[in-house]
């Protein structure tokens, strides 16, 4: 899983060179990386390291700063929970001088606590609370301006949910699953579950999750394994009369 996070298969060679080389510091390359971000947004891909490269360029050249780009990056990072992507992005947001040259007022300071809150809810697996907060009126501006453009944002959040559910449950109640996934109508839920390959039980009240390394548990006794080379000295001493 980690290898694809470091170097996603959807990354082109051009971007690969930019991210891995010294060219990432060249301010004129920020346009290429921003275009790549918008490509990710439209086609439901995600490339963490390339987005971090954008933030680093903003760190060094504060005149390149574009708050919309930053918000989009953070939104994308929400879908990577529980990986630390969101935290890494925040680490790179340095302070900026108050007299920055922007045409419109900077939306980032207002949105940031909101995004922090959403991330925290996801990290603590409080999924119903997350959906409630997300659908609330307060976040309408977030929904209208940003997440609506991000294709499959809700699906990527659902993937976060599925990751958590998959590792913890072998069977989960249908209602509970629907609550976590924010799929109200039974048809939607059934369609989603079918896409995942999970099965319902006969009454349709419980969903079974196929076995994976995380949800198969067994009690293991970690025995010490004594190897022959460790014993050579003792054996050779015993061989002497």
């Amino acid at each position, binding site marked *: 899983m*980690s290898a694809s996070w*470091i170097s996603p298969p959807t990354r082109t060679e051009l971007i690969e060179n930019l991210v891995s080389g010294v060219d990432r510091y060249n301010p004129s390359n920020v346009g290429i990386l921003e275009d790549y971000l918008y490509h990710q947004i439209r086609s439901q891909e995600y490339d963490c390291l390339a987005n971090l490269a954008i933030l680093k360029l903003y760190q*060094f050249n504060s005149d390149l700063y574009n708050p919309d780009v930053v918000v989009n990056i953070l939104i994308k990072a929400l879908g990577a929970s529980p990986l*630390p992507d969101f935290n890494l992005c925040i680490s790179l947001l340095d302070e900026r001088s108050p007299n920055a040259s922007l045409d419109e007022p900077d939306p980032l300071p207002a949105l940031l606590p909101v995004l922090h809150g959403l991330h925290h809810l996801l990290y603590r697996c409080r999924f119903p609370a997350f959906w409630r907060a997300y659908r609330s009126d307060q976040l309408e501006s977030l929904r209208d301006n940003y997440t609506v453009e991000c294709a499959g944002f809700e699906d990527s959040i659902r993937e976060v949910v599925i990751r958590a559910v998959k590792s913890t*449950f072998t069977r989960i*109640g249908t209602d509970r699953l629907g609550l976590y996934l924010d799929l109200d109508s039974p048809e939607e839920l059934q369609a989603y579950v079918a896409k995942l390959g999970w099965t319902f039980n006969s009454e349709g009240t419980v969903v079974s999750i196929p076995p994976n390394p995380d949800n198969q548990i067994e009690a293991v006794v970690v025995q010490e394994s004594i190897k022959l080379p460790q014993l050579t000295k003792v054996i050779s*001493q015993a061989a002497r009369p």
Partner: protein
Amino acid sequence: MSRPTLWSTADMDEDLADAVDAELSLYVQQGQNPAIYDQLGAQIEQLEPLLAIQQHMAALAAVPDVVKSFIVSFHQAILNRDLPSITIFYTTTFPKLTDRFYSRTEWPEPETIAPLLSSNEATEDQIHIFLVLYRDLYYRHVYSRLHPNIDDRFHSYENSCELFNYLLNSPSSADDNSDEPAPVDLVLPEQWLWDIIDEFIYQFQVFCSWRSKVKSKTGDELMMLADGTGVWSSYSVLNVLYSLIQKSKINEFIVALKEEQGKESARSAEEVAKSISPYTALPLYRTLGYFSVLGLLRVHVLLGDFTLALKVMDQVGEFLLGGSGFGAKANKSSFTALPTLPATHISTHYYVGFCYMMLRRYPDAIRTFVTVLNFLQRMQRMRNYSGYERKDQYDQIAKTADRTLALYAMCHSLVLPGSPFTRLDDNITSTAKERYGDQMGRMSKGGSDALAAFEELFLYACPKFINANSPPYDDPDAIALLLSADPTEPAEGSPIPTDPTQRHLRLFLASAGAQSPLPTLRSFLHLYTSLTTEKLSSFLDLVKVSESDQETVEEAEEEAIQEMMVLKQNSRSLSRIVPAQGRSEKGNDASPAGLTVIGTLLEGEMISTSDLNFVIDDNTIHIAESTVGRRYAGWFIKNTERSQRVLDEIRGSPLPVFKGKVGQKQGASGTVAPGAESVAINDSAEAAQKKAPTKTVAWGGAGTRTTLDA
């Protein structure tokens, strides 16, 4: 009545005014004759350097003789490329002289000592280079013992730039007509090279933190900062480090070394180096390139970019941190091509471990810290290790070690205890408990107390983060705005704390805080093999079971289940070192000795870090616990070997000689049992081959066997 001013002729007598006017006109006439002034000016100019020289001579005379001779011989050693004496001068003589003469003041200015150097046969260039190196030592002393002012900071930056320029871009010698820069013919001890890079980054860090304190600047400083925006800029620092890496091709070198390892007729490290580039062939550049990679790691951590920090260590990390059979520990002799100073070891492990910690990869962080802390403990036992007679350097290492221990303590509390795969080192844990026992106790319990303890240790142990950009000194309005901002009022609408340390602290506390309810949860799970969620939520005191309000019961249950998901999530972690998949059936052993290591520092696979595994089946929780079997092999083997050693020793040692009757008895008993003696002799011949068989090793015979026979 005010005093008459000299020049307001209106207040004066007419006569006097005329006289003054006449005088003034005389001067005006003279002024219209520029030649006189030129002459005067020329005379003054001639005098000025003489004056300066006089000042310098006076200063030079004030320099003690010991110091003068030191400088001259130091210069000579550098000219002769005499590495051992340069090393001695640098590591011992310089600190001694500093302590003796200059513990509170600066060393003599470079201009002052310049006349001393012309006594050796050296070209202008060589003198110049020596002065650059001398200035490096001079400014380092200023930064460490005294308080640098803004001039010092600017000058030290220029000096460093000059030094690196010389190393990277000096034109090739006269024979070679190409325009390519050629490697420089200079030899410096490794310790000095590390100190150059270390100091460069340290000065950068100190400058950045000084620069961000806008309010405490004087008017002059503000002006100088406004003009000098290029000084100590992040781009130039990164540029230097990247250029050194590229010039010395250190990464290609390591890759080539790795390839050579597998081959049968492996070339030596030097040959490999020569085949890559003329720069790589010189130890000076190889060392500098290698140290620059480590420096880059540090700079990226200071700027808050943890993944990039680990990424630049791609090749070097495998080499230094080992794990793929290609480590600095394994075949040290074959890798003398790259130096391993204790200072670099510790610094690198500290930063790599910190990166892992911020990436929430606690097992990897713990592993890194344990490696370096073990190394340090061993080193402390050998205190007279060469290169460590410098007390100030040892102090710095001790301080870093302390901070590493604090980070270890934090990670220890964050990894849910009891994992069979993390193999927490007991030795280091007990050291950590001694030093930070109070905080560790608080952190393991969870709750708000834990967060306070985490904050305390984090602020102590984290690197001094910096802001990449300076406050806008060149924009007077912005500066005025910053200066006039009320310090007590929180910055408007800035939910990101502007201080980078605070920002990282908040992120870390959020992660740690999410884990604080988990220890209690774990303790309940320990007690059961299966459990209903209702019961669990009642244990957690979220609601009483007898509560009739269905909604609250359901809510509480929901809360409990969500905590369980968090627990599951936290018991999984990315790790670079993965236990080999050895188990197929239930109850089989999972051998901890079978570890595989994955390549670069950023990669890894998910492993389980908890011995408590559970799964939720609709409303029931099934729990399985892994235990570690008793490990007795090591103890038995060690004691067996020890007993054998004692036995051999006793067999091989001569009998204590008693005088008088006892001696006769010995002789008698010796003759009485000749057969037994011969047996004894046979024994001794085998067991202690080095001793001559005629030695009095009669105890084996005389002692036990006669009694047995009897």
